[in-house]
């Protein structure tokens, strides 16, 4: 039975469904918490979902598109589901939700620094990358081992206090 006041609009139902789809590379976080969903629109013809890639060359984009089409399609809200790749607005790591940051931390990833990313040749601005907060012990006595990690969006650090290597979701 649907309770008064709990009726969800078609758009809200799509957002709810997207909130249950895990990121293919870091399953601890959902696509919504990752901030890669730009917008959702529903009309009689189609559900249109705008997907903002974290990195232009992210190989998980096609997997995300497939999962969105499959899961949102199962809601039967319209004839088809269109997942449009967009860089407008560009995804930045500031789009990760507070809940998403916490989930990253709990699964061993330092969340990215907050604040606009350095762009162009402003190398001085990037010195902040040298330290990330250890997701295991909270220490900031850490060093960046490699700005490039196992996927495009991850950097590798080492914690001098608990002696653990860990990864950071890059600020970009």
């Amino acid at each position, binding site marked *: 039975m649907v309770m008064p006041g709990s009726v969800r609009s078609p758009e809200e139902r799509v957002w709810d469904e997207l909130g249950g789809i895990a990121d293919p590379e870091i399953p601890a976080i959902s696509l919504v918490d990752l901030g890669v969903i730009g917008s959702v629109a529903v009309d009689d013809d189609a559900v249109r979902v705008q997907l903002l890639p974290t990195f*232009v*060359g992210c190989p998980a984009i096609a997997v995300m598109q497939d999962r969105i089409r499959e899961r949102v399609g199962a809601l039967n809200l319209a004839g088809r589901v269109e997942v449009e790749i*967009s860089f*407008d607005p560009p995804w930045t790591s500031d789009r990760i939700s507070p809940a998403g940051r916490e989930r990253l931390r709990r699964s061993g990833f330092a969340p990215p620094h907050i604040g606009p990313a*350095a762009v162009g040749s402003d*190398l001085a601005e*990037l010195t902040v990358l040298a330290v990330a907060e250890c997701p295991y012990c909270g220490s900031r006595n850490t060093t960046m081992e490699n*700005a490039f990690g196992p996927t495009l969006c991850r950097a590798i650090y080492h914690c001098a206090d608990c002696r653990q290597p860990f990864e950071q979701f890059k600020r*970009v």
Partner: protein
Amino acid sequence: MTVRPAPQLDLGQREALVELLLSLADDEFVIGFWDSEWTGIAPMLEEDVATSSIAQDEIGHAKALYEMLAELTDDDADHIAYGRAAEDFRHAALLNHARGNWAFSVARRYLYETADAVRLTALAASTYEPLAMLAGKMRREETYHLLHADAWLRRLADGAAEPRERLASSLRTLWADAQELFAPFDGETSLVHSGVLREPMHALHAEWQRQVRRRLEPITGELPAAAPTADGRTRRTDEFAWLHGEFTSVASSEEAAIW
């Protein structure tokens, strides 16, 4: 990709935009493949990871640019990337060279990344919105590449005599061909007029030279006067012909292969 109102491009401007996009895409594509030649044999494990990740970024950027081109020309991104003869590529002469030794790759990376930063800053202000959005996004990622190239430049330059000399001689060898990243192209004036390209290539070139001379000349000594030339994006080498054979080998042996 978002379809947005673009400035009304006449046929000449459209052809010029295709030329510009093709040169950008081919630069990213070819340097990405040269970087991938280090996977498994870089001088240390961390660099195996880094060069492979940078290569993946660059080829990803090329893919997005080829897709934009495919929309403008009613072609297919895979076909543009893998279906062309070596002589139809439009990358700058800087990218004709094989990867060489590590210092040579570092020298090329530094020259390329600094030029790419100048170019992307201008393109992020383009009146052609799809390009402006993509360039802005690419620039954020390229900042990591620039940081990486700069760190290695410093490391080799401040190192022992041999790495420093290898770096310096590589920079001197590549200096002339690096200018070609700013080679003028047909229809450039019309793109500047419509704001698709905010500044002419010669202005971007001057800005880049001012930046890199200050950084490089303490390492190399005075670098000669140098400017882009008319065939800077059309002359090809045997080394590139070899790489072209490598990156088209899957597409030519299995036509249905996709990205």
